[in-house]
């Protein structure tokens, strides 16, 4: 197991290097730079721009810049953000954490809802309840999450629901007790997490239902029933345990969708995460911040997939690590 994890981590290194080359050259293609916009400002002197160019290494050739940047990254230095004027690592640390919090919350909501509903739908196939849930899953699957977020915000304001509509903390956050702070953040988390969770919820429900139906058809279920076991035991001890396995594979697939979905949800709900930061960085041509965003996003994705594979290996003894 340990060698398996180690090998997977080692395999990720060339992948990350390739990603860094790709993202670096994409950003180089981008027309204009942050300094160009600065030049338009009459208060900024030529000398300042020249010093900044030198400071950020922008006067060197592109391959040189790349290797310089890569070398810096290996030393844990992601460069300095043009807009925030602080090291990128400072900005990105909290942002990445916020995105992880949001993604985990969304995942808890999605899994917490979809598994029971999937089981219900499968055991009550073609009943009214199943039909309602299946239709709702289609609706959830089809609603773009930024629109869903707008809709929720609209409803919250319209019906005066006592929920905050933007950001991560209230103005009074600094004066709150620890428990007050946690409740405050949770309140802000609710809307983005529900929005982000809905899309995965819909697809997970459909898969859970399908897996459960397949499991319920197998021979060991017939055997269990023939033995005279209670329905509850048959469903939860025999069928459920076998149906849940493929769901863990889905966990890996979901991460990419979660990170992508988070970017839009964060923008609409003002949750200060990685995606929102990426957008501002890309818009203001904040080169190093945008590249760090791409890199950290990819690292999260690769790690998430690794965790999914490990979970699968633990839960399913048939899978060998090779």
């Amino acid at each position, binding site marked *: 197991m340990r060698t398996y994890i180690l090998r997977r981590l080692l395999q990720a290194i060339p992948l990350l290097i390739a990603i860094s080359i790709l993202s670096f050259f994409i950003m180089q293609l981008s*027309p204009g730079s942050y300094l160009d916009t600065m030049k338009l400002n009459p208060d900024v002197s030529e000398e300042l721009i020249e010093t900044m160019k030198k400071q950020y290494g922008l006067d060197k050739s592109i391959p040189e810049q790349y290797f310089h940047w890569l070398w810096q990254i290996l030393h844990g230095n992601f460069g300095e953000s043009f807009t925030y004027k602080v090291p990128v690592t400072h900005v990105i640390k909290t942002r990445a954490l916020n995105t992880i919090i949001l993604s985990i919350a969304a995942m808890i909501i999605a899994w917490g809802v979809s598994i029971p509903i999937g089981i219900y739908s499968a055991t009550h196939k073609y009943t009214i309840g199943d039909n309602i849930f299946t239709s709702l899953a289609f609706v959830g699957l089809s609603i773009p999450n930024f629109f869903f977020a707008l809709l929720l915000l609209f409803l919250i304001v319209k019906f005066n629901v006592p929920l905050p509509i933007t950001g991560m903390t209230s103005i009074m956050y600094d004066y709150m007790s620890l428990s007050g702070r946690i409740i405050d953040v949770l309140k802000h988390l609710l809307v983005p997490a529900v929005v982000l969770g809905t899309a995965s919820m819909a697809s997970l429900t459909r898969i859970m239902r399908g897996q459960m*139906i397949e499991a319920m058809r197998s021979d060991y279920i017939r055997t269990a029933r023939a033995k005279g076991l209670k329905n509850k035991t048959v469903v939860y001890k025999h069928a459920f345990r076998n149906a849940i396995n493929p769901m863990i594979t889905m966990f890996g697939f979901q991460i990419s969708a979660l990170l992508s979905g988070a970017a839009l949800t964060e923008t609409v709900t003002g949750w200060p995460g990685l995606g929102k930061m990426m957008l501002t960085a890309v818009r203001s041509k904040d080169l190093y911040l945008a590249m760090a965003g791409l890199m950290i*996003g990819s690292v999260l994705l690769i790690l998430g997939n690794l965790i999914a594979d490990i979970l699968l290996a633990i839960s399913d003894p048939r899978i060998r690590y090779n």
Partner: protein
Amino acid sequence: MNRLNQKDFDKNTDISKEKKSEKKEYDFLNDTWRRMRRHKMAIIGGTIVIILYIIVIFAGFLGPYNPYHGFKKHFFHPPTKIHFFDEDGLTRPYVYRTESFDWAEYEVIKDKKYPIKFFHKGDKYKLFGLFKTDLHLFGVDEPAHLFLLGSDNYGRDLFTRILFGGRVSMFIGFVAIFITTVIGLIVGGISGYYGGWVDNILMRFAEVIMSIPGFYLLLALAAVLPMGISSTLRFFLIISILSFRGWAGMARVIRGMVLSIRNEDYVLAAQAIGARDPRIIQKHVLPTTTTYVIVRATVSIPGYIIMESGLSFLGLGIQEPNASWGNMLTAAQNVTKITNFPWLLIPGFMIFFAVLSYNLLGDGLRDALDPKATENN
């Protein structure tokens, strides 16, 4: 010999005759259609999709105004109320004119009724981009306005803009999935068929693209697009971005399928006869993947529609003054705006309906073309 026996047998029994005639009628399209019809929701979804395409193609004729025509004194105008009754009872539908008395506040002036005229002559436009005309399905005479779904911040008719915006949203998915599929088939086909270092390089590249969170990559790529390029060019560049992100997943699965097909007898036979590789890939290997490709294409179109509207919503996709359902929602980004002018949210419902219909269609199509895949539903 065998056939002869079969003939004799058929003569003697009715049952086998029936069976034989059934077999004769077997035809891929017919069979698919038969299975498809069982999914009522898929048929409904498909019908809505077709209707949406027809509507957006005839946008110029169906919308009462020019999508860029801003009525400066009528910005954020609520949907115009259409009256069907007057003092004498049921009458020809008519509207009243409105005048603003405060910022985005309008009062109805009931001095004259303006009937809604069919085949009304209004703003000029080009039908299919070819014929110049000013004929609209309906409209009202100035100074009254007919804002079926209200107007936006420049006083442009939201209904007309939704029709025109639908062109972008409905066609971008369609074209993007076409390009993605072509690239996916070529790369996946080559990779799976030749194997070796070609396969290695192509698949590693696909892996790199798939390891960057999709929307982040799209954001970075969209930022590369220069500002101030023509809207058509921008449209195609956005399609290329979406396809650049999308081909990898398709290529991976095609490669897997090709790998397993490569050693089938009929491929070996073709090789033995001396058929050249491109011919074998084209004629023998790739057709086997047709069903998968069709299903995958239909199922992924909604994803492209959502991606495009997301990019446009953030201001990185289709730019003003051109309309797309995504960038129309940008106006609704502000919470106070959506509570005061809730009709700004309507383009979002259009995205939702288009995506929902496509999802229903794709689901039915998957069942019809590949019954094995979803026998558990």
